[in-house]
């Protein structure tokens, strides 16, 4: 019989975590089927390995062969991992996929990860994430001052620059903290995952997104381990990952649409709002200042940021006259 290769995969998510976890299950199933059972991948969720944000390290040292996580979780360890998930005011999912596969994005990501014995691949996209649940309206930049918000990472840094107070609160205490006004606002994901957290019952204003327009998860594979696989199995694994990531984007899209319909009928009081233009432009300015600072400190960061910004300039013109133009010109007709 053919030799069976067994791989171990660690994911950042808990068992049966919707959408994110589905992407992994999907990939594993395809890999096994395409290889006719020669590639078997065991999936360990966070409840088993107990280290959701240790996935990078555990795959790097070979405790696991594959990981499924998000690149920006590791920016404290390797600063340039920040750019391969999503950027505030950055590209949409289709634009970002174009950048990854035809705009030099994948090569840049490879360069950042290869120093750590890792081979990275896109791992599924959530699409535009929502700006978060707020208890009070944000009408001016002044309203951001003293806003206590759970918003981790880079976006938190942007808001802090405008006088807001980013707060670290464990996920288990978010609901109580929002309900009791310990925080004024929080961001989670979007309808696909927000519905079950119940935030809409205690903070009725749902702001549209700006900070994570195209959150892309990632698969990382231990490089040495990958090279021990026969060439056909390497190819099968890569195809399975690429297909799974695309499937997750589609699934997120479908689930967000469905859940939003449920939310809107069951909870008609939810108010969807956009931040006023003045607030958004202040955020954009703060965002650009931070990026400039990061670029001036690190040549590799400068290279990635430039690649993303150049690509956005190129691709957005096309988006404007294609998808956006189409949606705008046929908006009334679609109803």
């Amino acid at each position, binding site marked *: 019989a053919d030799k069976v290769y067994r791989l171990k995969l660690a994911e950042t998510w*808990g*068992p*049966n975590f*919707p959408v994110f976890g589905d992407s992994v299950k999907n990939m594993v199933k395809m890999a096994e089927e395409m290889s006719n059972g020669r590639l078997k991948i065991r999936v360990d*969720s966070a*409840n*088993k*390995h*107990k*280290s*959701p944000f*240790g996935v990078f*390290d*555990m795959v790097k*040292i070979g*405790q696991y062969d594959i990981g499924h996580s998000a690149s920006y979780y590791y920016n404290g360890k390797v600063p340039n991992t920040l750019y391969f998930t999503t950027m505030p005011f950055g590209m949409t999912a289709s634009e970002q996929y174009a950048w990854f596969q035809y705009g030099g994005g994948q090569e840049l990501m490879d360069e950042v990860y290869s120093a750590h014995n890792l081979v990275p691949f896109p791992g599924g996209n959530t699409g535009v994430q929502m700006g978060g649940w707020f208890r009070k309206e944000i009408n001016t930049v002044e309203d951001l001052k003293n806003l206590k918000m759970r918003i981790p990472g880079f976006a938190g840094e942007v808001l802090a620059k405008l006088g807001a107070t980013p707060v670290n*609160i*464990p*996920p*288990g*205490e978010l*609901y*109580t*903290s929002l*309900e*009791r*006004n*310990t925080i004024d606002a929080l961001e989670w994901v979007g309808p696909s995952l927000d*519905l*079950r*957290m*119940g935030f809409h*019952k*205690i903070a009725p204003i749902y702001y549209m997104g700006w900070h994570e327009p195209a959150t892309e998860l990632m698969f990382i594979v231990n490089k040495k381990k990958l090279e021990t696989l026969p060439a056909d199995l390497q190819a099968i694994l890569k195809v399975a990952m690429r297909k799974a990531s695309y499937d997750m984007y589609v699934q997120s899209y479908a689930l967000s649409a469905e859940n939003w319909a449920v939310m809107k009928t069951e909870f008609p009081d939810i108010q969807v709002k956009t931040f006023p233009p003045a607030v958004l432009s202040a955020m954009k300015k703060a965002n650009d200042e931070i990026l400039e600072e990061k670029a001036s400190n690190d040549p590799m960061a400068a290279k990635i940021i430039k690649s993303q910004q150049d690509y956005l300039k190129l691709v957005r013109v096309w988006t404007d006259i294609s998808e956006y133009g189409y949606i705008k010109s046929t908006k009334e007709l679609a109803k």
Partner: protein
Amino acid sequence: MIGIIMFGVALVLLLTGFPVAFVFAGVALIFGVFAEGFELFAFMPYRIMSIMENSIMMAVPMFIFMGNVLQKTKLAEQLLEAMGQLFGRVRGGVAVSTILVGCLLAASTGVVGASVVAMGVISLPVMLKYNYDKKLATGVICASGTLGQIIPPSIILIILGDVMGVPVGDLFRAAVLPGAILVGAFILYVLIYAYFKPEAAPALPESEFSGPGGFAPYLVAFKAIAPPLVLIFSVLGSIFYGIATPTESSAIGGAGAILLALLYKQCSWKILWESSIETVKVTAMVFAIFIGATAFSMVFSYTGGEELIEELMFSLPGEKWGFLIITMLVILVLGFFIDFVEISFIVVPMLYPIAEMMGIDLTWFAILIAMNLQTSFLTPPFGFSLFYLKGVAPPEVKTMDIYKGVIPFIGLQLLVLASIVVFPGFYGFE
């Protein structure tokens, strides 16, 4: 299979009396190295790190500190006696007060270790001083210390909400009445027990109540009632008014205790320092068990323990009542051996889709599971509450006293659980 042998060996080695934390670690070491090799232990730093980063657990030392300050300044005694007076000079008054204090701690966090240990420090010495039966005293503390599981905010409800896809807010609301009924059942049991066995839960002696005439008694009463009020206000108030997160409220509780000590002119550096040292000892005892237990569960799950449980679940019956009853029994039995977080992650994802298919209300199902898992803290031999309390109890309290003490309370929890199963309408379900 290795999983089952491991539990057996751990059980035997625990009986040797070597510290619990290191028995877990040692058994994990032997079985882990034997089955998977040394490499498995490369996971240990990651697992320890995740315990370190779990800031919800920060409530543990801070509530223990609060308990120590209250105890060393004699304010705890005063507090419980004052509350005992609220119930008249009834027998079992201090035990009832203990249940209410447990309720208070439960409403401010969902961390069982913190509540059990703080209550052990606060009220066990008082009950022992007034000649309470050791079994009753320890049973009351363990049981009311675990109330944090069902009374919101509660960690288990948050995990279940996440795993089952039910809004956390709904679960919190649904848990209030079952929690209240459980508290009522505990109190009723203590009162009845004390009525029939007066020597087990004596009323406070008359001398405790004597004082001068005129306005003075009111002043004395007020001075006695004030401490609990200040503490209730500082701990619960800080959450309800949005000043602090549930975890941070434990720091407010610690600070509140110091403030009380200052108000009553009982505060000194010596007391703070000694409280701090005591707190470190108890906290380290609790977290050593966490570390030992994480090593143990690591070896259990990496040697096929999860698959073992999954096989077990496949043999569940396919109609509603049979499914419910067997499910509850299986969770209860697993709870004897396995941590509630593990159970919620391994077993619940397999159960809730079936429940949903049978048309069982998921909120109701989640509350049943939460009640059931709360019991797992009390069930010997691996009930963590039992270990926590043993760690702070004076040497004259034996493990056997605690084991025997919790049995009636396990019974009460199962009784309330059964009532939710039989009368869902009363609890607002369906």
